């Protein structure tokens, strides 16, 4: 790109292309591919992910049995790994999207409320945030799932419950730094209502920081869901979940490496791409951290 074109581009997009910004593209593509796979799961999965085939148990990748070719092998019940991986993408991504959305909204609203209301509301909310953050999140999730019981909805609820304080803390800090700016005070003078000030004047200014947290949390949520399912506390069988597939694969490390290798690889690629996108966003939106 010529210098002039670069300059024009900067003026049009309002930002400079930093070094390494092109390096994130392949990972954006990987992430987009996972999203597509998850959305189109019923159309592209070659087989029913839950249909068992006892003659086709533990088949190696590429083996054909009973007219089904297991491109990535089959598991201990003769289920097609490709199809289970495709449907597993759906579980991973939907749990992550829902829990990030839920914890993000709850945390942001509470953080903004604490920063604008001040007084006892602030004390209660921010102390609660401190308390939540002083329990290791994995342990908090485990104890809550243990009481609540496993399953898709409960996993989402538990993840949201354990992760909202992260957003609350960021939203709180950001709101405090914006709330005393002249334009916000002016809006207050002119009689704008509290919700209006919060959502029209403050939220757009803090949403960048929240987005960065949300992206980095997204990868964590994928890992948490897989971890809970690995421990048998997440999504219940026979629903395909990468974490649960790994825990089965652990029993067959000696005889069928593919059962644990491919779900692990999918998890790794998805989380890696999300983390890199998150890092990139942080560099873009939060120059201080560079």
């Amino acid at each position, binding site marked *: 790109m010529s210098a002039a074109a670069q300059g024009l581009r900067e003026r049009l997009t309002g930002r400079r292309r930093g070094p390494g910004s092109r390096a994130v593209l392949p990972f954006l593509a990987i992430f987009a591919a996972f999203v597509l796979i998850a959305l189109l799961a019923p159309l592209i999965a070659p087989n029913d992910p839950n249909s068992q085939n006892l003659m086709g148990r533990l088949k190696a990748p590429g083996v054909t049995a009973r007219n089904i070719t297991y491109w990535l092998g089959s598991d201990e019940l003769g289920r097609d790994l490709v199809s289970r991986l495709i449907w597993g993408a759906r579980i991973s991504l939907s749990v992550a999207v829902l829990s990030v959305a839920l914890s993000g909204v709850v945390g942001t609203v509470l953080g903004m409320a604490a920063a604008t209301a001040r007084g006892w509301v602030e004390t209660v909310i921010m102390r609660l945030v401190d308390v939540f953050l002083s*329990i290791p999140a994995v342990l908090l999730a485990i104890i809550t799932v243990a009481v609540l019981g496993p399953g898709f909805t409960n996993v989402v609820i538990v993840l949201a419950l354990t992760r909202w304080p992260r957003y609350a803390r960021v939203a709180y800090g950001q709101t405090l730094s914006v709330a005393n700016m002249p334009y916000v005070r002016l809006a207050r003078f002119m009689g704008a209502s509290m919700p209006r000030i919060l959502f029209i004047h403050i939220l757009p200014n803090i949403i960048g920081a929240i987005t960065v947290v949300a992206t980095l949390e997204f990868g964590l949520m994928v890992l948490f869901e897989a971890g809970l399912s690995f421990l048998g506390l997440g999504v219940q069988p026979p629903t395909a979940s990468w974490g649960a597939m790994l825990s089965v694969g652990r029993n067959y490390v000696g005889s069928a490496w593919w059962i644990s290798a491919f779900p692990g690889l999918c998890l790794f690629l998805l989380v890696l791409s999300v983390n890199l996108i998150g890092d990139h966003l942080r560099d873009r939106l939060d120059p201080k951290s560079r």
Partner: protein
Amino acid sequence: MGRYLARRLGQALVALFGVMTLIFFVQRLTGDPTYLLVPETATQADIEAMRASLGLDRPLLVQYGAFLADMARLDFGRSYIQNVPVIDIIASRLPYTLQLAGGALLVAFFIGVPLGVWMAVRRGHAEAKGFMGLVLAAQSMPTFWSGILMIMVFAVWNQWLPPSGAGGWKNLIMPSVALGLLSMATFARVARTSVLDELSKDYVRSARARGVTTGRLVRRHLLRNASIPVISIAAMEVSQLLAGAVIVETVFAWPGLGLLTVQSIVSRDFLVVQGVVLLGAFVTILLNFAADLLYSLVDPRIRLGGTS
């Protein structure tokens, strides 16, 4: 110093109290623990009897008071399955988790910090970029997958290390590496950022102008000044390690607190789970407190300036 200490101690106690309150109400609001304790065939009368024997039929606030009183006496109750005090069960498993966390911390610290310093000093060079890729990969690696891969390679394909269980020091290698990788990435990043911060300061430039070599600069100046963020991260990472142990211990059948937690959930031994979670929270609060004290000693601005 005295006032700072008192205020910080007060905060730690409030957090401790908050954690106990949170755990109590999470349990009571999300479900009735009685159902976790009675067999699935229990009749309504059995359930009522169990509830009364546990004191769960009392008003919530009375139960809460009794719970706090037990906690103050360090009474975590008795395991329903083994009929042994929870604290004894935890004590018998704790050494294993400490060994594992210690091993993981060694891996994380002695690989992560040099890697981070290297990446900062050689910023922009090919090998620094390569290391960064390594760090990002380690950060995105699910511990249960890296654990299984290691078992596959080092225990099944090559019989170099025992695949699981506790025994000699050889059993500790793979779990420590699996658990330490994630923290390694964190240490490397923090060390890199704080060394980069130091590198841009005037004293570094004048030292360079006087002809101080890079190696000496790093050893004599940078490491000392860049150590504060690393200390604070170390405290946080230890509590992360304790939580990560749940998965790693399950993968390697390592008989520590993590495996105990999972086993207790499966056997519905709820007070044991609660005991482990409380212990994890206590340790986290204690470590954060210790880290704050440590850097108020290293950096007097923290205790004098009053910014927390």
